């Protein structure tokens, strides 16, 4: 979503900055609106709809996803934009899929490679460490988030680093890395446009691939005017992107160290691969002399040839584009430079031991499950109050904190679309279902739900009592099965009509019309 490129008559791509002075299509940075379709469009309205904020998180208390989702839905411009933008990605993904006849085979292959690797994880990680070290990379092991942050901090301290540029990484979000760095006085500059927007707005990313997808351009204009001094009334996307580019370039050039994540590590070569669209990871990795990559241990694949399978699937699933703009292979430090890889566990080996949930580690963080999820699209990623949102979040967040994320597996209609789009064939919806059982067994589900389900179970296993309950009812509401009105609030009827009760039940019709035979 970053660079501005336009097609010239001869078909060459010319960056607007390269245009002649006086060219009306050239980028103008004085805050005036640009003379092209997006730039000349009218502002949405005088007072743009305020951005709904995410879930209210109170320590360990269960996150109320539904409360935050309701506020998102109550902001119709945001909800509609979000739903349509992500559905568009899903449709583009479908188009790409139809261009690959062997798509389903590729998914099976990707899944098999991941399952094989995960069941031989120790071997491949050792192999990676040996080969990466031979390439001149310093390899570190971090048991958890705290250890990760300390390791990186120590490297930065040893090198006298004051400012760090970094590309987007869900793992560093998981580790609370930016907060930690703030506490030790090292400046972190996110270089991915979406992630930078989120950093400047002091908000978590809402999506693993498009971190600011929940924001309207007017929201971004508000953030930028507050933080980098753009015109608050100019929400032209090119103007905003260009302003950010201008503001961030000097920071990139002056940074002491660079940090990236890693999409894949290849055991046989000791190399790692970063897939991005903005080129910012390459700047982060290559401009400063010191490059640190934080990578989750599940990101390993055995051989370079396996990478081809994942590269074909990743961007097609994520954004519906054939490949990311940049697929950068890192093999070792450049002359006079230093390269570190921090291999992070942070709960992964424990997850690997969970019989029903270990395959969630196959995830390549493409976000396809989020784009297709009808609940996610209407709730916004921040409603989950967790690092990982959407379907993949529902099944891995509880491994971090079962109490805090105990509501999340209920934020699903179990429709199963997520499992069908997942490029590594994780049975996401079955794991959501399995999590509900586990959470009930661990007593992490609220008492009201528990009481209602127990009552329903008792009533529905006793035909006479059940019939009496149905027959005694004389209003539509009382007819409703008990689990529907479990909390006395009648959640059914708040936003939709209750069904119209018929003259008689099927049971009594059958008695009257076929009774003689029974």
């Amino acid at each position, binding site marked *: 979503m970053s660079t501005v490129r336009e097609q010239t008559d001869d078909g060459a791509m010319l960056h607007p900055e390269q245009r002649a002075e006086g060219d009306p299509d050239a980028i103008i940075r004085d805050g005036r609106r640009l003379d092209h379709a997006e730039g000349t469009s009218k502002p949405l309205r005088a007072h743009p709809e305020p951005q709904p904020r995410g879930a209210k998180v109170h320590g360990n208390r269960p996150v109320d996803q539904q409360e935050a989702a309701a506020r998102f839905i109550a902001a119709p411009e945001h909800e509609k934009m979000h739903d349509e933008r992500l559905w568009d990605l899903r449709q583009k993904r479908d188009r790409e899929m139809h261009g690959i006849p062997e798509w389903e085979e590729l998914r099976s292959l990707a899944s098999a490679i991941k399952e094989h690797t995960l069941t031989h994880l120790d071997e491949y990680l050792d192999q990676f460490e040996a080969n990466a070290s031979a390439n001149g990379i310093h390899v570190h092991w971090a048991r958890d988030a705290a250890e990760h942050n300390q390791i990186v901090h120590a490297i930065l301290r040893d090198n006298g680093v004051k400012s760090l540029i970094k590309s987007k990484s869900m793992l560093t979000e998981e580790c609370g890395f930016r907060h930690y760095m703030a506490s030790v006085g090292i400046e972190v500059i996110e270089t991915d446009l979406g992630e930078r927007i989120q950093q400047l707005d002091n908000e978590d990313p809402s999506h693993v691939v498009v971190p600011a997808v929940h924001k309207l351009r007017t929201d971004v204009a508000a953030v930028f005017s507050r933080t980098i001094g753009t015109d608050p009334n100019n929400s032209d996307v090119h103007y905003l992107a260009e302003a950010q580019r201008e503001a961030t370039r000097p920071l990139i050039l002056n940074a002491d160290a660079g940090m990236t994540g890693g999409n894949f590590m290849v055991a046989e070569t000791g190399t790692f691969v970063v897939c991005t669209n903005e080129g910012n990871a390459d700047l982060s990795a290559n401009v400063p002399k010191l490059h640190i990559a934080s990578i989750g241990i599940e990101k390993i694949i055995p051989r370079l040839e396996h990478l081809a399978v994942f590269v074909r699937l990743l961007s097609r699933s994520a954004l519906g584009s054939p490949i990311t703009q940049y697929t950068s292979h890192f093999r070792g430090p450049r002359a006079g430079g230093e390269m570190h890889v921090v291999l992070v566990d942070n709960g992964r080996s424990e997850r690997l031991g969970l019989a029903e949930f270990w395959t969630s580690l196959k995830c390549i963080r493409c976000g396809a499950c989020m784009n297709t999820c009808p609940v996610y699209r209407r709730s916004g990623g921040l409603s989950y109050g967790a690092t990982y949102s959407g379907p993949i979040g529902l099944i891995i967040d509880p491994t971090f904190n079962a109490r805090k994320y105990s509501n999340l597996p209920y934020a699903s209609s179990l429709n199963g679309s997520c499992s069908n789009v997942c490029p590594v064939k994780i049975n996401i919806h079955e794991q959501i279902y399995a999590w509900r059982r586990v959470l009930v067994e661990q007593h992490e589900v609220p008492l009201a739900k*528990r009481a209602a*389900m127990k009552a329903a179970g008792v009533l529905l296993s006793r035909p006479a009592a059940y019939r009496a309950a149905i027959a005694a009812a004389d209003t539509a509401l009382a007819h409703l099965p008990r689990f529907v009105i479990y909390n006395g609030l009648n959640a059914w009827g708040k936003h939709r009509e209750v069904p119209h009760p018929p003259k008689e039940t099927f049971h009594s019709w059958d008695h009257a019309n076929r009774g003689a035979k029974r």
Partner: protein
Amino acid sequence: MRIGLFIPCYIDAFFPEVGIATLELLERLGHEVVYPRDQTCCGQPMANSGFNADAAGTEALFVRNFSGFDYVVAPSGSCVHHVRDNLDAIEQTDQVKEVRSRTYELVEFLHDIEKVDAFPWAKFPHRVGLHNSCGTLRRLKHALPSELNEPFFSKPIDLLSKVEGIEFVKPARPDECCGFGGTFSVFEEVVSTKMGYDKVSDHAQAGAEYIVSADSSCLMHQQGCAERIGVPMKFIHIAQILNGASA
């Protein structure tokens, strides 16, 4: 064949006409249809919410009621999905396994077992939008979901195409969940109803007069949503059309 008819609680209480259509249709096809009178539910509401142990009594009752039939048929995809794929709160005796494997959803039964090739009594000169519930689409595999790159098929369309006069419309997001989702409809009611509004609006925009489905639970939810936001839409179960309902 001797068929046990399973009429889930919603249909019993709110849509008796769907139960009647299913019963009559199976009788028309020459079967002996028995409605065990002690039936209540299959256990899905409890199990779907994670309270599997609380589903045990209901599941045991289901197995007691439906043992000994050639087939058990229900006009409800989500209930059949539960019986076939998730009914495991009770010990898996031979009797339990037998009942689980003989339980069929009506469309599957007509299409795969009975292989019906004509419904000469049926005529439905209307524009319909087909709603495949997620249970029928992605679990029971009534049709190819749009996420997969495999050859297209659709059992409900195969059957409905044999009905005189019927015309299909195609909504923009044919496979999107309508938001019912069992207890999801009350636990997450705001998102659930928003999904419902979007679903019925999509069908209305495509020009549907009726939304037809093999799941009354989805239809009950969609109808409630349509009435709330004032979308003039009619709802009908596939059993009613196949049994010759005129409107």
